C-alpha cells in the first residue's frame, strides 16, 4: 500500500514537471497560431511594399519595414565591431582573474540586464540632449538639427542594448577555438595579433554571425528604447538622412493597437504587422539557434 502511494506521488510530481514544459510549449504554439491565422490573409506582397493610407487604416507597412531595416543596419555597424573587439580582449588579452577582466565582465552582464526603457532614457539624456545639443552648438551654431529624436540616436541606443548579445556570442565562440591551434601559431613565430587575426577570428566566425543575428533579432523587436529616441508615429516619406525620424515595425504595432483612432477596423493590419515582426525575429532566432547547435555539435 505504501509502495503504491509512493508511486502515485512520484507519478503526480513527474507529470507536474512535464506538464509545465508542455504548458510553455503550448503557449508558444498558441501565440504563433493565433497571430498566423489572424494575420495571414492580410499579408500580401502589396501590404509589404506600400505606404499606410487613410490615417493608417488602410495600405501597407513599407516605411515601417524600411525604417526597421535601416535602424538595424546602423545598429549592427555600431554594435558588432565593438562587441567583437571586447570579446577578443576579454578572452585573449585580459587574464581571467584580473580586476579589469572581472569588472568588464560585470559591466557586460549588467548591461545585459538593464531594463530597455532605461536605454531609452539614456539615449534621450545622453545622445539627444548632451551629444546632440553639443553638436548643434559646435557645428551649426545652435540651429536645431541633432538635438532631437532621429534614426542615428535610436540606432546607437539600440546598439548599446544589443552589445552584450554580441559580446557573449563571440566570446563563447572564441572559447571553442582549441588552445593547441593558438599555441601552434605562436610556436611558428606568429605574434599574438597575427594569431588573433589568422587563427582565432576565422575559428569564431560562426559565433560572430550568431551574435549578429541575435542582435538584429533583438534590435528589430525592441520598442522601449526607441519610444523617445527616434521612432515616429507616421511619416509620409522614407528617412533619407541620419537626422530623420523613422517608422519601426514594433512601434507601429504598439501605436496601432493602443492609440489608433479605429482599433477594431484596423485589426487585420495590426495582426499582419505583428506577424511580419514575429516572423522576422522568429526566423532570425531560429537561424541563430541552428547555427549554434551545429557549431556545438561539430566541436564535440
Amino acid at each position, binding site marked *: 500500500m505504501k509502495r503504491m502511494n*509512493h508511486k502515485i506521488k*512520484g507519478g503526480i510530481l513527474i507529470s*507536474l*514537471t512535464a506538464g*509545465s*514544459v508542455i*504548458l*510553455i510549449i503550448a*503557449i*508558444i504554439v498558441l*501565440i504563433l497560431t*493565433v*497571430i498566423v491565422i489572424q494575420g495571414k490573409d492580410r499579408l500580401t506582397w502589396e501590404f509589404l511594399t506600400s505606404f499606410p493610407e487613410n490615417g493608417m487604416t488602410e495600405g501597407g507597412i513599407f516605411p515601417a519595414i524600411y525604417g526597421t531595416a535601416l535602424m538595424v543596419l546602423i545598429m549592427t555597424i555600431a554594435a558588432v565591431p*565593438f562587441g567583437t573587439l571586447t570579446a*577578443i*580582449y576579454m578572452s585573449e*588579452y585580459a587574464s581571467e582573474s584580473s580586476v579589469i577582466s572581472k*569588472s*568588464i565582465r560585470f*559591466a557586460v*552582464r*549588467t*548591461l545585459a*540586464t*538593464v*531594463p*530597455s*526603457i*532605461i*536605454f*531609452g*532614457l539614456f539615449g534621450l*539624456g*545622453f545622445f539627444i*540632449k*548632451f551629444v546632440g545639443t553639443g553638436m548643434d552648438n559646435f557645428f551649426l551654431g545652435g540651429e*536645431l538639427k541633432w538635438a532631437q529624436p532621429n534614426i542615428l540616436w535610436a540606432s546607437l541606443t539600440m546598439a548599446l542594448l544589443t552589445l*552584450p548579445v554580441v559580446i557573449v556570442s563571440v566570446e563563447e565562440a572564441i572559447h571553442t577555438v582549441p588552445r593547441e591551434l593558438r599555441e601552434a601559431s605562436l610556436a611558428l613565430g606568429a*605574434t*599574438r*595579433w*597575427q594569431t588573433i587575426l589568422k587563427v582565432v577570428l576565422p575559428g569564431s566566425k560562426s559565433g560572430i554571425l550568431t551574435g549578429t543575428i541575435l542582435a538584429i*533579432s533583438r534590435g528589430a*523587436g*525592441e*520598442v522601449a528604447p526607441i*519610444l523617445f529616441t527616434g521612432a515616429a508615429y507616421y511619416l509620409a516619406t522614407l528617412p533619407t538622412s541620419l537626422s530623420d525620424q523613422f517608422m519601426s515595425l*514594433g512601434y507601429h*504595432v*504598439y501605436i496601432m*493597437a*493602443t492609440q489608433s483612432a479605429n482599433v477594431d477596423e484596423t485589426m487585420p493590419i*495590426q*495582426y499582419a504587422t505583428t506577424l511580419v515582426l*514575429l516572423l522576422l*525575429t*522568429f526566423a532570425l*532566432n*531560429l537561424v541563430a539557434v541552428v547555427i549554434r*547547435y551545429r557549431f556545438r555539435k561539430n566541436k564535440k
Partner: protein
Amino acid sequence: MVTDETPKSGFNKESLKKKFRFSEFISEKIITGVAFLSIAIILLIFIFVFKEALPIFHQAKPKPAKTEQVSDQPETYGAASEGSGTPEVYGTETDDQPEVYGGETPDRPEVYGADTGTSFTAEPEVYDSAMQARYGESTTEAIVGIGNLLGTEWQPVSDNPRYGLIPLLVGTLKITLIALLIAAPIAILAALFSAAFAPPWLRELIKPAVEILAGFPSVVIGFFALMVMATFFQDLFGYGARLNAFVGGVAMALAAIPIIFTVTEDVMTAVPGSYKEASLALGASRWQTAFFVTLPAATPGIFAAILLGIGRIFGETMIVLMATGNAVLISANPFESVRTFAATIGAEMAEVVFGDTHYSVLFLIGALLFIFTFTLNAIAEFYIKNKLIKRFQGKTT
C-alpha cells in the same frame, strides 16, 4: 634554449628580441580601449539618468525664501517667475502649466514666461494654498518635496501637479507578484523536468523552444495579451476592466519564464553527479532524488533566477503599457487596472517638455528602476558565484 652560447644556429639575443610592430601596437591599444567601453557605458548610464533627475533635488536652496515670500504676498511671485526666463530654472518650477503641455516644442520658454504672468495673477489663491499645503511646514524641502514624491496621487499634468510615486510602486509590485506567482512555479518545474527527467534528446529540444519564447519581442507578447488574453480572461472571470493587473501579470509571466527557466536549468544540471548517485544508491527513486536532492541543492540558484526574473518584470515596459490599462489606482484587487514605473516613463516621456519637473521626475523613476534592477542582479550574481559554487565545490572535495 637558444642563447649566445650556441652561435651556430644564427640567432643572437638581438635577433630574438620581439620586433616592435607599430600597427599591432595600435590595434592592441584600440582593443583595450574598446573593452573598457562597456564599463564606460554603465557609468554613463548612471551619470546621465541621474543627471536628468537631479534638478528635483538640486534647486532646494533658493526655494524656502521664495516660498515664504509667496505665501505672504502672491503678487511678488509673478515677478519671480518672469525673472526666471531661462528654461533650466523654469523647468524646476512645479507650477501649473497646462499651456506648455499643449505645445510640444521644447524651445518656447519665452512664450511661457509671458503666459505664466497672466495665469498666475489670475489665480494666485490656488497656487498660494497649494504651496502652503505642500511645502508650508518644511522650509528645506526641494521643489518636488519628498512629501510630494511619497504621496498617493500621480497627477503630473494638472494645475497642481502631484508626483506621488506610491501608486506606481504598488502597481509595479502587484504586477511583479502576479507574474512571479505564475512564472516561478512553471519555470522551475519545467527546469526540473528538463534537468532530471528528460532524456538528452528531449532536453536538446526543450532548451531551444524556451529560447524561442525568450526571442519573442515584448511588443508581440503585449499585443497578444491585449488582443487575445484580455478578452479570454474577461469571458472567463467576468470582471469589469478588460485590461487589468491580472492580464498584465500573466503576459509578464511569459516574459519572465525563459530567464527563470534558463538559470534554474543551468544550476540544476551543475548539481554534482555524486549527490544524485549517493541518493540513488541509498535506494531513493528518481523523483525522490529530483525533488529532495537536486531541487534543494539548487536552491541558491533558483533564488538567483527568481531575482533575475523580478528584475526583468520590473523593467519591462511594452507589455504593461499595452496590457494593464495604465490607470493609476491603489487597490488590492488583481482585476483592476494598474500603472507601473516603467509604463509611466514609456507613456509620458514622449509628451513632456524637456527640462520640466515632470521630465525630471520621470528620470528619477528611471534612476530608481536602474538602481533596483542593478541591485537585484548584483545579489543574484553573488548568490550564483559565491554560495552555489562554494556549496558544490566545498561538499564534493
